[in-house]
């Protein structure tokens, strides 16, 4: 497809600032993160880390960065990845598991429309997609196909809506174990590379992916789950950038990233957000607006 091209070409990143209500969201029993997160998260540190990430995206990788101001009424709105799934020209506004998160998409929708994306809604609550839940952190797009993790936050019906939206692609559902999100255990590490956690649950998911795919992906296994979530971007002049957790946060995995040839590694801390079950990719939406039809 015109819009089927190797993964990693992005021109824009959309982020949303960390609000003061960071970590004050009602508890999510399903969440893998700390249950008493409010007490332990450090807002200032989280904002600093957020700043580092956006800095890396803008200055190191060279993306156009669009930052949506934080909204204190939406304590989880910084997890912008969840509210929309973007592929090519099309942005699917998701229906997050938590009711209160569903208003987060409004500001994002406006931005995406301004960027010229075709915004697709998941449909009314009572409509055909009733009961469907989908969060972007359960969606792995590899450039060739989608994998949707059927997790605590995303159900099969949500995946169906996604499949209906992105018809050009195969959409496969894979199980995600242990309350984690798909992107907690894996992420793209290159056009044909998937970074995978070494945990048992992740292995199970990986096996399923391998079973379902028509393609062959290189798998970069990292010993720590925290390290499994990275942000890969093929920047200008075709440099490979990988934003990954720093040695302090994932000491065992540094060596694995070193194996990536000719990559520009950008260790970026994400300890505060990860306390809430989020990860690097949760914080940004990546968009490719330069793609043409040829």
């Amino acid at each position, binding site marked *: 497809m015109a819009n089927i091209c190797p993964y990693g070409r992005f021109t824009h990143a959309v982020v949303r600032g960390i609000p003061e209500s960071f970590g004050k969201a009602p508890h999510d029993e399903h969440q893998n993160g700390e249950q008493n997160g409010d007490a332990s998260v450090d807002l200032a540190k989280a904002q600093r880390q957020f700043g580092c990430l956006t800095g890396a995206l803008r200055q190191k990788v060279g993306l156009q960065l669009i930052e949506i101001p934080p909204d204190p009424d939406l304590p989880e709105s910084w997890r912008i990845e969840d509210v929309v799934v973007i592929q090519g020209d*099309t942005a699917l506004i998701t229906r997050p598991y938590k009711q209160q998160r569903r208003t987060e998409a409004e500001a994002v929708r406006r931005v995406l429309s301004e960027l010229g994306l075709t915004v697709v809604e998941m449909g009314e609550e009572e409509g055909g997609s009733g009961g469907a839940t989908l969060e972007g952190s359960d969606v792995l797009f590899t450039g060739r196909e989608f994998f949707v993790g059927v997790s605590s936050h995303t159900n099969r019906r949500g995946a169906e809506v996604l499949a209906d939206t992105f018809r*050009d692609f195969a959409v496969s559902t894979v199980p995600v174990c242990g309350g984690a999100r798909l992107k907690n255990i894996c992420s793209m590490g290159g056009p044909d590379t998937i970074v995978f956690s070494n945990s048992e649950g992740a292995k199970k998911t990986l096996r399923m992916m391998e079973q379902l795919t028509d393609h062959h992906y290189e798998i970069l296994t990292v010993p720590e789950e925290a390290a499994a979530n990275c942000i890969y971007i093929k920047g200008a002049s075709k440099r490979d950038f990988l934003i990954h957790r720093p040695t302090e946060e994932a000491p065992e995995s540094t060596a694995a990233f070193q194996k990536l040839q000719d990559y520009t590694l950008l260790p970026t801390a994400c300890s505060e957000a990860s306390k809430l079950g989020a990860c690097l990719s949760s914080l940004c939406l990546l968009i490719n607006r330069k793609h043409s039809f040829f």
Partner: protein
Amino acid sequence: MTTEAGTETEVKEKAEESAAQPDQIDQSEKAPEETKEVVIAEGDKKEKEGKGISRYLPSWLKKQKSQTQTSPTKDDPTSDEAVGNETEQKEGAPPEVNGHAEEEEEEKEEEKENSEQVNQKEAELKADVKEETETVREEKVEEEKSEDKCAKEETKAVPEGEKTEEQQKELVKETSEAPAEGEKETQTSLFQSPLKLVRKNKMKLVVCHVTLLDGTDYTCEVEKRVKGQYLFFKVCEHLNLMEKDYFGLTYIDNHNNKCWLDPTKEIKRQIRSNNWQFSFNVKFYPPDPSLLTEDLTRYLLCLQLREDVACGKLPCSFVTHALLGSYTLQAELGDYEPDQPKPLDYMSQLTFAPNQNKEMEEKILELHKSHRGMTPAQADAQFLENAKKLSMYGVDLHHAKDSEAVDIMLGVCANGLLVYKDKLRINRFAWPKILKISYKRNNFYIKIRPGEAEQFESTVGFKLQNHRSAKRLWKVCVENHSFFRLNAPEPPNKARFLTLGSKFRYSGRTQAQTRVASSLIDRPAPNFERTSSKRISRSLDGAPVISITDTSAGENGREPHLELNSDSKTAEVEIEETVVVQEVSKTTKPVIVTVEKVPSEPVVKIEEAMTVTEEEKSCKRESVSSESESEEEAEYHPNVSISISHTQIPEEKEEEIEEQEKQVKNDTPADLPPITQDTPPAEVQEVAEETKDVVESKEEVVVVEEKPAAEPEMEESTDDPMVTPEEAPNGLPLPDDAPDATLEEEPKMNGQPVTVETVETERHPQVICCTEPPVVKTEMVTISDTFAAQKTEIATKEVPIVHTETKTITYEAAQLEGNGDAEPGVLMTAQTITSESLCTTTTTHITKTLKGGLSETRIEKRIVITGDCDIDHDEALAQAIKEAKEQHPDMSVTRVVVHKETELADEED
């Protein structure tokens, strides 16, 4: 081609024409709706019978002719007659009938093909008991006619100048056409010379309507009994299409399902209606259309995909719809013209997408502008480059239910089998992961190769709507697997012989072969007109370069495909219809770890070996079941050619075994005078319905070669495993059993096989267990089997089967008959090698070691020639015998047993 041959044929036809005049009138009265009524010049059934193999045999062998079975209606060829025949032969008028003279020149393959066709035809007839009365009547008339004719036959060798010439021209034309495509073909001779395959006899013509991909209708007349490929080739010819293997014809069956027309079978038998309406469609979507050689092929593929996209069969996103639409416009209209009158109006007349709207049309136009300068061929290529990436490209979806009765879709594609639930892919079985594909009634099963971590194979079952759907899905799987994964299709004859089971196989060329063939296409790019465009397609090579980043580099790079060979040996895939096997494999499942083991197979082979004499019968049956709607189950082992020497040996349909048993019963008394009486009535009936041209005569020859050193007394015992007609063990069931067989067969023919099947399944007495193989290519099978012929137990055990290019079975057999003939100390090894040649040949080496240290090797060759009278059986036989002698110069031919079976309507008289 000799002049005389053509002449004779013509003469026959002429004579028949006149003889048939009254009939013709009669018929046209009966069937006024028929547009054309042509005399049918066929059915010289008897002609061949008078010419026994004797004329080819050395005189000493002729004396042994007592074994020859001939139709009672025809005089047994005495030596005098044989001489007479020989003289006739010398005159250059071989006993070819009905204008089949040209087939004399055909390759062996084609002869085989013919015989196969006849088999199929026969099967079809069997399957189709409910013939339209009209046809039946007509056929009967013809039958009589042809009989009359036969009688006069021999006196008619009068040359007739002009007609001969004409015919020759025709022949020349045909022969020159056929090889154009077919040079490379070896296995796939089915497609080699379509036109040749058509009977020259004039028959009833029917008008076929074929909807082409551009929406136009192609109408042509074909003879009523032609096979699917004839029509297909006519269409391809009309389209000027050479890379035709990706395409096929579809028809809508009585249940409103779209079915692929089997090229190897008669159209009439497939469509089962008077609606001769077909569609020309892409059957196999090439994963990389840029590797196609001709723009014309790409254009046709584009047309198919446009239709697929427009009807929603190939889902795509809005953007993709727009993009594909824009390439369509570019290809059909050329560059965007700003002053084009009301482009949007025009656009809305075209269908690009299921939910096409103004927005999309605007987008299409916008994109169309950007394609300026692109040639139609380039636009098509771009269209395909984009379409091929769609996830549903080339996926053939079938509704099914999983084991929990949840609605799912099964998608068959180039890579394997995909399982979807509500648009989501929930599972995928790549071809290499699949060991076996089978169906049984409305169940569809795939046996999965165990993964690295797993120890056992697993079988996944799906439920289809009905057995027809299951069979259709199974066929599609077989064909897709064969086309995309094999270097060459399984050689039909070989497999047919080995399996004895009814089976369906992909009969065309594989992708590998078609690519090779395409690379040899040497003609200027054909001109063709795109639907809406007046432009002429230019080859991409000469086209101006357009800055399309995506243009695949290999677009014109015709890869040499050196790796592709047409060596069928590496590409053995068996399709069987098996019941036993499934049970068997269940038993063995825990043991089986390696791929190579398909435990049940050996069993089958052994059975074969035991019942070799009966194989001609089995062949018949095989085709019966392959044709009949009642075919309720089948198996297929998708064994990819990559696994070099490992070949799958086919399994056998349980029914077949059963039938074989019956057959044995039936045939055992074959020595008794009228063998035809043993033929189940069903066959007779069928013959009656048959249009006169289908005369089936089958011959079997057993050539026994014996080493001079061999001890004569051994002969008897060595013969045991190979039941030859004259040595068929006694104490076999009486001919009374024949009706039974018929009864059981009958329902199948009528497509209501259910009861039969159950009965047979349960009845089968086999107990088979397998142990681990010593070598990869070898299987150790412990068999305790009931010897089909005798119902006595063979304590056959540890049967190592070596899979090589040839099939070899070595087995150790205990006493077969309780006659104590073979002492306990006797070791018998028998190797059965089946090779493909003119006809099916089984070579059995039997080596016996005696207590005294003496050893004897006997080689038995069983040659089965199946076909109608178009084949010169005698010549084939003679050739086979000659070959046998050449192969074993140090051995002598001690016995030739000819078991000939001819089906004739009048045999019952």
